C-alpha cells in the first residue's frame, strides 16, 4: 500500500506543456514535470532560462500562454485562490515590511491568510523558534541581516500550513555560510512538517541538496533526475587542464587520445572513464605544454555543461546578484 501511494498517485505538482510567451519572446517553451509529495525538487538553470516564469505560473502569479498545471490537486487556471491557500511562497525579491517587527510581519500574514485567531500566536511562536528568530522577533526588520530576512520569509510562507513551499532563488545574494543554514532549515521543515519544497536556483552546489532536479535551459527542461542520476550521465571522471597553447592541446587530445575536450574559459575539460589511466597518457603524449591538471568526480556543473554546451556563468551572475543585493539594501534603508 505504501508503495502504491509513493508511486505516481501522490503527485502534488503536475505540469503539462507549459508555454509562456511575451510578444515574440518565448520564456518557457513546453515544460512537463511532476513532483511527488514530500520531495525537495530543484529547478536549476542560468539567469533568464525560464525558472522564475515557470514557478510564477505554478504559483498562479502568471497565466500560461498554453499548457495546464495542477498544484495540490487544483487547476491553477481554474481556482487560483484555492491554490494560494495551500501553497507558501518565498519570492526572489524581498517582500517584507521592514518598518514592522518580525512578529508583526508574521501577524499580518496570519490575518490575510485566515489563520484561525486561536492558533495565530502559537503558530507564529513555533515558526519563529523553528527558524531561530525568537530572540529578534520584536526588532524592526530593517535591523535584520540578509539571512534573517530570508528566514523570516520562510517562516511567513509556512504560517498558513501550506502543502507545498515554493521558493524562487531563496539563497540569492547570501554568503555561503548563510546559504547553508537556509538549507538546514529547509530540510528540517520537510522533516517536521512533511511538506513538499519546490525551489529554483542557479547555484549548482545547492542543487545537490535536492531529491530531484530539473535542469532548464532556454525555456526547456534538458534533464531531470536525482543528483546522482544526472552525474552518472557524465560518466567517469572529469579532467581539466590548462595550457599556454590551449588550441594546440585541444587538437592533440582529440587526435592522439580520442577524447573531445570542451573549452571553458581558457581551460580544457574532458570526461574520461578512468582518470588514473588517462592522465599519465595525457602528460606523456601531449606535445603542447600542460601547465596544470585537475581531476575530480563530476559535479552538476559538468552535467549542465555537457547537456547545454555552455556553463552556468556563476561569476557573472554573482556580480549581478551582488549589485542587486546592494541596491536593495540601499533602497531599503531609504524607506
Amino acid at each position: 500500500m505504501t508503495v502504491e501511494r509513493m508511486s505516481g498517485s501522490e503527485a502534488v505538482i503536475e505540469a503539462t506543456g507549459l508555454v509562456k510567451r511575451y510578444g515574440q519572446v518565448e520564456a518557457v517553451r513546453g515544460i512537463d514535470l511532476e513532483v511527488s509529495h514530500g520531495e525537495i525538487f530543484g529547478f536549476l538553470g542560468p539567469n533568464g532560462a525560464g525558472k522564475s516564469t515557470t514557478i510564477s505560473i505554478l504559483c498562479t502569479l502568471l497565466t500560461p500562454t498554453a499548457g495546464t498545471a495542477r498544484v495540490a490537486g487544483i487547476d491553477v487556471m481554474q481556482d487560483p485562490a484555492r491554490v494560494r491557500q495551500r501553497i507558501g511562497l518565498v519570492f526572489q525579491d524581498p517582500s517584507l515590511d521592514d518598518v514592522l517587527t518580525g512578529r508583526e510581519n508574521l501577524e499580518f500574514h496570519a490575518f490575510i491568510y485566515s489563520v484561525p485567531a486561536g492558533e495565530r500566536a502559537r503558530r507564529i511562536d513555533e515558526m519563529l523558534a523553528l527558524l531561530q528568530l525568537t530572540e529578534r522577533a520584536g526588532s524592526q526588520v530593517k535591523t535584520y541581516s540578509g539571512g534573517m530576512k530570508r528566514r523570516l520569509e520562510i517562516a511567513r510562507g509556512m504560517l498558513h500550513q501550506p502543502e507545498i513551499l515554493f521558493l524562487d532563488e531563496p539563497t540569492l545574494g547570501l554568503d555561503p555560510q548563510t546559504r547553508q543554514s537556509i538549507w538546514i532549515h529547509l530540510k528540517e521543515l520537510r522533516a517536521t512538517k512533511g511538506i513538499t519544497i519546490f525551489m529554483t536556483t542557479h547555484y549548482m552546489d545547492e542543487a545537490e541538496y535536492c531529491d530531484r532536479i530539473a535542469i532548464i535551459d532556454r525555456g526547456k527542461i534538458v534533464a531531470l533526475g536525482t543528483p546522482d542520476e544526472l552525474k552518472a550521465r557524465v560518466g567517469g571522471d572529469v579532467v581539466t587542464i590548462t595550457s599556454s597553447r590551449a588550441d594546440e592541446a585541444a587538437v592533440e587530445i582529440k587526435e592522439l587520445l580520442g577524447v573531445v575536450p570542451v573549452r571553458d574559459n581558457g581551460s580544457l575539460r574532458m570526461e574520461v572513464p578512468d582518470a588514473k589511466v588517462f592522465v599519465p597518457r595525457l602528460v606523456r603524449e601531449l606535445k603542447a605544454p600542460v601547465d596544470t591538471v585537475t581531476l575530480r568526480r563530476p559535479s552538476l556543473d559538468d552535467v549542465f555543461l555537457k547537456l547545454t554546451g555552455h556553463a552556468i556563468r556563476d561569476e557573472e551572475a554573482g556580480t549581478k546578484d551582488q549589485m542587486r543585493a546592494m541596491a536593495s539594501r540601499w533602497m531599503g534603508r531609504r524607506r
Partner: protein
Amino acid sequence: MSVKAATSGAGSATRAVEPIDTRVASLRAIYIIWYRDILRYWRDRWRLVASLAQPLLFLVVFGSGLSSALGRGALFGAGGFTYIQFMYPGIIGMAILFTAIFGAMSIVWDREFGFLKEVLVAPIDRSAVAIGKALGGTTQAMIQGLILLVLAPFVGVKINLLTIVELLPLAAVLAFGLSCFGVALASTMKSLQGFQVVMNFLMMPMFFLSGALFPLTNLPGWMTVLTRLDPASYGIDPLRRVALSESAPSALVERFALTINNHVLPIPLEAGVMLAFGALMLGIAVMMFQRRD
C-alpha cells in the same frame, strides 16, 4: 522513508482545508491592512512632525502676511474678521488633502519595495486591499487634520465641543474621498516615477482650486468652473462653515460659502458629493487591482 511519506501523505489527505468565509476573510484583511498603515504612521514620528510643519508655515507666515495686507479690504477686516481666521479651516483641509492622498499612495512604495506582492498573492479579494488602504489613508489624514485644532485659539477661532463633534464626520468624509482618489491613482502607477507628475499636476492644482486659501466667489469664469470641478472644494467648504460658526456671524460666513449659480450649497449635499466621489474612485481602484497580470 517510505513510511514517513505515507503517514504525512495520509495526514494531508485527512486535513481537509476548511472552507473560508470570504466575507469574513475580506473584513479581516481590511482590518490588518488598515492596522499596518496606522502602525507605520505612529512608528514614523518624524513624518508626523514633518507633515505638520507645512500647515504651520502656511498659517504663520502666509496667513499672518496676508492678514496684514488684506486687513482693510472689502471681504476681510469687517467686524474684526481676519484672513487668518478664514484660512485656518482651509489649512486643516490642506493637511487632510495631502495626508490622505500621500497615505493612500503608499501603495506605490509597497509595490516598489516588494511588500505589495505579499498582499496581492494572498487568497483574499483584492477589493480588500483597496478598501484597507483607503481607510488607512482616511485615518491618518483625520488625525493629521484634527491635531491642527489645537491651534484654534492662536488664530482667534473659537471651537467648542459641539463644533468638534460636527467637524469629525466632515473631516472623515473629506479624508475618505481623497484617500480613495489616492488609491485609484496608485492603482494605475507601476513605479515611483509618476509620483512627481501626480504631485505637480494633480495635487497642487487640487489644493489651490479647493478654496483653502481664498474664497471661491467672484472668480473669473474659467476659474469658477475649475473650482467647482475640484472635489476638494466640496470637502473644505463645509469644514470652514462649521469651524467658523462660533467666531463670525453666520451672514459673514455665508459670504464665503461655495455656491453654484449663486445658490449656497447645503452641507449634507456637499458631503454627499464628496462621498460619491470617494465611492467612484474606490470602484475604479478595485477594478484596477482585480486585473490579473
